[in-house]
C-alpha cells in the first residue's frame, strides 16, 4: 500500500505538489489525470525516490521512504518498477543488455540472462530477434515495450507508468493499454498510470485527478462519468469552458 501525506515540492517559486494526500491500496489500478505541466510526473518521481520532496511523507508498505537511506531505501524501491514516458533506454546498449541490465550488473552470466530477457520480450509482445538491436533501431511503441520488459525483470509489486502512450498512434495506444492491463493481471500488483487519455478508464479501477498541487478527486472509474466535481466533469469531457485554468495560456477578449 502507498500512502502519501501532506507532500510538498517546489522548484523555485513554482509549487508542484502543495500538501498532497493520496493512498493507493494493494492491487489497485489507479489512473492519475491532470493538465499538462500539472506535476504528475514529479509526483510519481517523488513516490519512486527520484525527486526528494520538500516535506511530507511517502509510505510504501508501512515504510516512509523520506526517512530511509541506503540499503533500507533500496529494499523498498526494489518493490517498485517505473516505466518512463520515453522509455529511457540506455542508447549505447543493445535491447538484450537493456532488458537484462539488472541481472548483468548483479554478475549473472550473459548466457543465463539471455533466455530470461527473451521471455520478457515475448511477454510484452516483442519478437526474439529484437534482442540484438539498439534502441535507435526501434519504433516508439517498441521502445516502450522494451522499457516495460526491463522493468518487469525485477518482478516489481508496484508498477508505475509515466504517460505510456504519449506520441503513439491510436492502434499502438490500444495495444499498450492492453499490455498494461495484462501485466496488471499477471503481476497481481499495484499499478499507477499517468495518462491524458480517457481510454485508460477502461482498464483502471480507480481514477485520481491532480489539480494545483493537490488530489482534488479520487474515486472508482465506473463512477467518474457521473461525478459532479466540476473540474473532473470539464477535464474528462475535454471542455474548453469551466473552472480549470489553462497553464500558460491567456484567454483573448
Amino acid at each position: 500500500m502507498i500512502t502519501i501525506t501532506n507532500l510538498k515540492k517546489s522548484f523555485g517559486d513554482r509549487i508542484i505538489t502543495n500538501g498532497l494526500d493520496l493512498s493507493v491500496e494493494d492491487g489497485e489500478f489507479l489512473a492519475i489525470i491532470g493538465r499538462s505541466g500539472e506535476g504528475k510526473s514529479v509526483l510519481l518521481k517523488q513516490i519512486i525516490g527520484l525527486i526528494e520532496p520538500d516535506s511530507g511523507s511517502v509510505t510504501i508498505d508501512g515504510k516512509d521512504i523520506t526517512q530511509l537511506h541506503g540499503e533500507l531505501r533500496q529494499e523498498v524501491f526494489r518493490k517498485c518498477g517505473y516505466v518512463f514516458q520515453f522509455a529511457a533506454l540506455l542508447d549505447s546498449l543493445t535491447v538484450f543488455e537493456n532488458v537484462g541490465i539488472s541481472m548483468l550488473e548483479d554478475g549473472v552470466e550473459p548466457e543465463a540472462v539471455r533466455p530470461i530477457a527473451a521471455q520478457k520480450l515475448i511477454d510484452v509482445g516483442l519478437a526474439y530477434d529484437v534482442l540484438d538491436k539498439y534502441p535507435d533501431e526501434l519504433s516508439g511503441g517498441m521502445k516502450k515495450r522494451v522499457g516495460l520488459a526491463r522493468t518487469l525483470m525485477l518482478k516489481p509489486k508496484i508498477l508505475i507508468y509515466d504517460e505510456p502512450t504519449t506520441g503513439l498512434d491510436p492502434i499502438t495506444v490500444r495495444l499498450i493499454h492492453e499490455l498494461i492491463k495484462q501485466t496488471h493481471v499477471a503481476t497481481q500488483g499495484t499499478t499507477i498510470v499517468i495518462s491524458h487519455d480517457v481510454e485508460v478508464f477502461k482498464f483502471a479501477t480507480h481514477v485520481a485527478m491532480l489539480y494545483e498541487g493537490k488530489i482534488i478527486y479520487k474515486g472508482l472509474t465506473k463512477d467518474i462519468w457521473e461525478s459532479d466535481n466540476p473540474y473532473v466533469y470539464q477535464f474528462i469531457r475535454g471542455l474548453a469552458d469551466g473552472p480549470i485554468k489553462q497553464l500558460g495560456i491567456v484567454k483573448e477578449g
Partner: protein
Amino acid sequence: MIKNIVNDLGSRTVKLCNDFGRFGVFAIDVFAVMFSTKLKMKKVLEQIIYIGIKSLSIVILVGCAVGAVLATQSYIGLERFSGTQFIGPIVFISMVREFGPIFAAIMVIGRAGSAITAEIGTMRITEQIDALQTLCINTHQYLVVPRVVAGTIILPLLSLFCSVFGIIAGYIVSVYLLGINGEVYQETIRTHTELFDIVNGLIKAVVFGLLFSLISTYKGYITRGGAKGVGIATTQSVVFANVTIVVTDWILGSLMLK
C-alpha cells in the same frame, strides 16, 4: 551601484562555495562506492581503452612536438654561455617532471574528458541515469567509478609515453639539426638526472588523472537543461579540468621541489 556589485560578488561567492561543496560530496560518495563495492573490471578496461589507448597517438605527437621545441629553445639559451651539452638533462627533466604529465592531461581532457561529460550529461537529460536508479543500479558504481579508476591508472602511462617521445624528439633535433653530440646528450642525462624526477612526474600524473576524471564525470552527472545544458556542461568541464590541472601542477611542483 556599489551595493549591486557587493550583492553580485556575494551571490557568486556563495554559489562557488556551494559548487565546491557539492563536488566534494560527489567525490566522497564516489570514493565510498569505489572502496565498498566490487570493481567492474570489464568496464574499467573499456574505459582504459577509450581514455588511454585511443588518446595515445595524439599524446605521442604532442610529446614529440614539445620535446623538439624544448631542445631548440634550450639550444638558443644555452649556446650564449657555451652550455649546449646540458640540453639533454634540460629536455629530460622538463619532460618527465612537467610537460609529460601536463600535456598528456590536457590532451586527454580535450579528447576524453569532454566526451565523458557529454555522454553522462546526455544520459542525465534523457532520464537514462534515472532509469538506472529505478532499476536499483548504483549509478556511481556503474558510470563514475570505472571512468575515475581508468583515468587515474592510464594518465601516468600516457605521461610516460609523452615524456619518452619528447626526450627522443629532443635527441633527434639536438643531434641531427643542432649538431650536438649524441653521446653527450645521453651521458649528461645519466649524470644529471635522478629517479625522483620520474617519480615526481608520475605522482603528478596520478593526481591529474584522478582530478580530470572526477570533474568530467561530475559535470556530466549534474547536467540540466537539454542539449544546450550538455554543451555548457562540456565546456565547463574542459575549462575547470584544465584550470584545476594547471593550478595543481604548480602546487605539486612547489611541494616536490628538490
